[in-house]
């Protein structure tokens, strides 16, 4: 959703929000999480990632946060920005995930889900 709650999130947006559900992350952390969670199906090159972040920040789904206490010590003090979900972002993620789950359930019901995805 683009913030208004009407448009489905793109796969990349969803994966970025997904990466931020558990903890705040910096750009490189988000990049790696998206790559890992999507098994490499969704790529988040640096330019594209920050374009998504820029938009999600504008839409109020993501916000800048303080450096988490458990951040790696070797990067402490470096000019890294951390991003976390806003309440609105969390709601948007939940709604989109529910929408995807419904869609998946419907597809399952009609036996349209490939075997390996079950």
């Amino acid at each position, binding site marked *: 959703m683009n913030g208004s709650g009407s448009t489905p999130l793109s796969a990349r947006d969803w994966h970025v929000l997904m990466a931020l559900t558990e903890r705040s992350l*910096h*750009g*490189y952390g988000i*990049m790696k999480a998206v790559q890992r969670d999507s098994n490499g199906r969704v790529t988040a*090159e*640096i*330019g*594209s*990632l*920050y*374009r998504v*972040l*820029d*938009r999600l920040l504008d839409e109020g789904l993501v916000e800048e946060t303080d450096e988490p206490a458990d951040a790696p010590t070797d990067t402490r003090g*470096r*000019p*890294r*920005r951390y991003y976390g979900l806003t309440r609105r972002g969390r709601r948007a993620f939940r709604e989109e995930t529910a929408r995807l789950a419904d869609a998946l359930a419907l597809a399952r019901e009609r036996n349209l889900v490939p075997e390996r995805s079950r």
Partner: protein
Amino acid sequence: MTWCGRWFDVVIRLLPSAFRSRHGGDMRETFSGAWAEHRARGRFAVAAFLVRTTLDMVGTGVRERVRRRRRSGRRVGGRGFRGRFARGASGGGGPLFTWLDVRLGFRMLVKHPGLTLVSTFALAVGIPVGLAPTHIVGGLMAPLPVPQGQEIRLLRQWSPALGKAARSTTHDFEVWSEALTSFERLAAFRQATFNVDPGEGGGTAVRGAEVTASAFTTLRVGPLLGRPIQPSDEEPGADPVVVLGHDLWQARFGGDPSIIGRVVRVGSTPRTVVGVMPEGFLFPTHEGVWVPLAIPTLDDPANAPSVGIFGRLAEGVDAAQAQAEFASVAAHSALPGSDPRMQPQVVGFAYTQVPGLSGGLRGSPEWVAFEILALVILLVACANVGMLVFARTANRAGELSVRTALGATRAHIVSQVFVECLVLAVVASGAGLVLLAAVLRLMWSVLPAALTSAAPWWIDWSIGPGTVVHALALAGVSAVVAGVAPALRFTGRSVQANIQRARARQTGLRMGGLSGALIVTDVAVAVTAVGFALTAAAQVRDAGAANQTVNIPAAEYLAATVSFPLDAGAEGGTATDGARSAGRWAAAQEELVRRLREDPRVSGVAVADALPRMNHDSRLVEAEGLAPPADRRGTSTRLARVAVDFFRSLDQSVLIGRDFGAGDLVGARSAVIVNTTFVQNVLGGQSAVGRRIRFVPWGDGEPGPWMEIVGVVGHLGTRMISAENDQAVYEPFAPGELRSVRLGIHVGEDPTGFATTLRTVAGQVDPDLMVSVIGPLDRVYEGDWYFLIALTTGAAFLVGVLLALAASGIYAILSFAVAERTTEIGIRAALGAGRRELILSVAGRALAQLGLGVVLGIPMATLFTRMNQTSPYAATGQALAVGVTVMVLVGLVACTGPTLRALRVHPSEALKG
């Protein structure tokens, strides 16, 4: 991170400034993390990452600008056909690149066949040039052609003090095998030449290797027949065994399927054949026979024999982990007194061929320079194609302006031109890959068999997926350089101005001084290069002509190498055994020469470490009483060590002074003979006999003892080319002093037919004598010959590239001029201008640039000639004339198409606008 950080600072400029100021610092930090991760995965991963990031930045920059423009209320394009046409192929809210753009790109290729051909040709030669360094290094340093060959790693210790890899020993092998866990197991090898005698008399010198049994297990290559060497074969007192290579088995044993169990003599030892390896297995470099490597038990590990050590990475272990463990183990196991600066390295097996390069071929400065030069040539090619694209875009001014007026954004127009260029570049890269494969095959085929038959067995010139990906990446970069830049320049004008110009059939654009300078440079460099290539080709032809550089009938001589395993009969033996072995070698050498001379077909046997036409050793020489050259300690001179009767055997008389005699081998041995070129170049034509000279080291160090010149001989050829520079010193040696000698046997016609006799006689004299027949002396090509071939092939390729670039540049500028001046040409034609006048008005500028290029090219070539006055590669006047003619012809051909197009302009058509 320094250069890549700077690179990122450049590409990030593709993004809008507001976006950069908001996210730039953080993006750089993210890039830094991703860069470190990719760097750990190797060079290829880094290259792919950089290409992906660049393309992503291009796309993000365009999309972000569109998004910001929309957000600020300036929505562009509409829905339906109108909007679709206006945006080129892309939907307004959709991606900038679609299949329709690609299809349009193909249509443009077909619609402008001349431009397509010229651009494709320019890129099809430019892209392989850009690819060549990486592909050649990849081919030369390829993994071993064994299962999971990339896991095979060489262990070596780089010595900064020596500037090369230090020797590894059997002691290192034992210690490292015990301690290292990053490898499945380690194996050791030592290369040698063995005299293999199938039992018919007359052995064959075969390159082989002593290997540990673990070598075969590590390589995971099973035998074709029998079994490989096993650990039991390494036990003291075990029966001597041998494993034969496929070629040796076929050539010397007739492919006998019942060979297993047969006893053959290898050196002086009868060994049982236990296995035959499959065809193509030539481990470690190009070997054809393998025997067990004995690991001696020594009191002093410092005296342990040298071996090569390699292993297969254990499962789940990568090269970096193995490197870390090896560094630690090698540091802890270093012998007392060894150099503490030694750098342990876990490297690819191909590093056995580059012991003097710490970072392998890729790390050498020459190679980096080659890579940069190749990329510069590619960029020049792209710039030329860019001019063509600019000219074509200018021709489409009307169409693009209308699109802009209908709402297409600048980004859409740029992306459309980019995709068109990308289609062209991808087609060109395909053609370029075919060209690259063909050129490499050609180069490999013209190299003498003596070189290719000894080349490392892992060399692989095939075009693999990595090369294809690299070519596509270069195609992407080419499309950016050749497409985006011209399109940005073209679209950087107001819509209204473009529409007005289009109506007037004018573009109003100027190609700019840079493009003119580019064409002039193209032409000038091409003129120089043509002259250079022709001169090099002439040198190859001259050098190839038999007997041209030597004063003996080389075609009547059979050249062969004879050597003796100095440990023959002394395996595990003492120094006394070694001395006995050396004595046997001296006696055998004398006896062999004596018996050969008794043969009625033989009229002389010359013995030396290098025969005429062969590549002689190079030394610095200082002459007493004469100042050395300003920049070094002596004059570079060729050296041959010769038997005392060498000149008599070659029927050469000593011109001044005396020949060597037996007395010159007694005592301090101070007599040397020089050639006439030495007298001229080193002694300045002064009297030579009685003068003293000495060898001085290239770097620091003590000079050798003084030697007295006792005679002067004529020119005999000390390397393939440049007779005027082959000043030579001849030093006498006694039989047995050199580990191997070259024999020049004067047998008259068909010297090759004498090879069998030579082998038989050698076998009779001493079964340990190893004979390696080189062939007729006039077909010996060593040293500079290879360099010349590489130079000529490279120069011919370069000339092709430069001519194509110059032609495409001229074509582009003329096409543009015709498009620009259609109305003017029409008016002129209507006013009765003649064809000659029209031709001059159209082609004048290009012809002027052509002329200027030629005028600049001649002094460049002349300067080159002056700088290389002593070099055989200097351009000659004749070659230069040909270069100028070729360039002018190419330029005129490039002018023809656009000029004819201008002449076809009908006045009424031109004036319609």
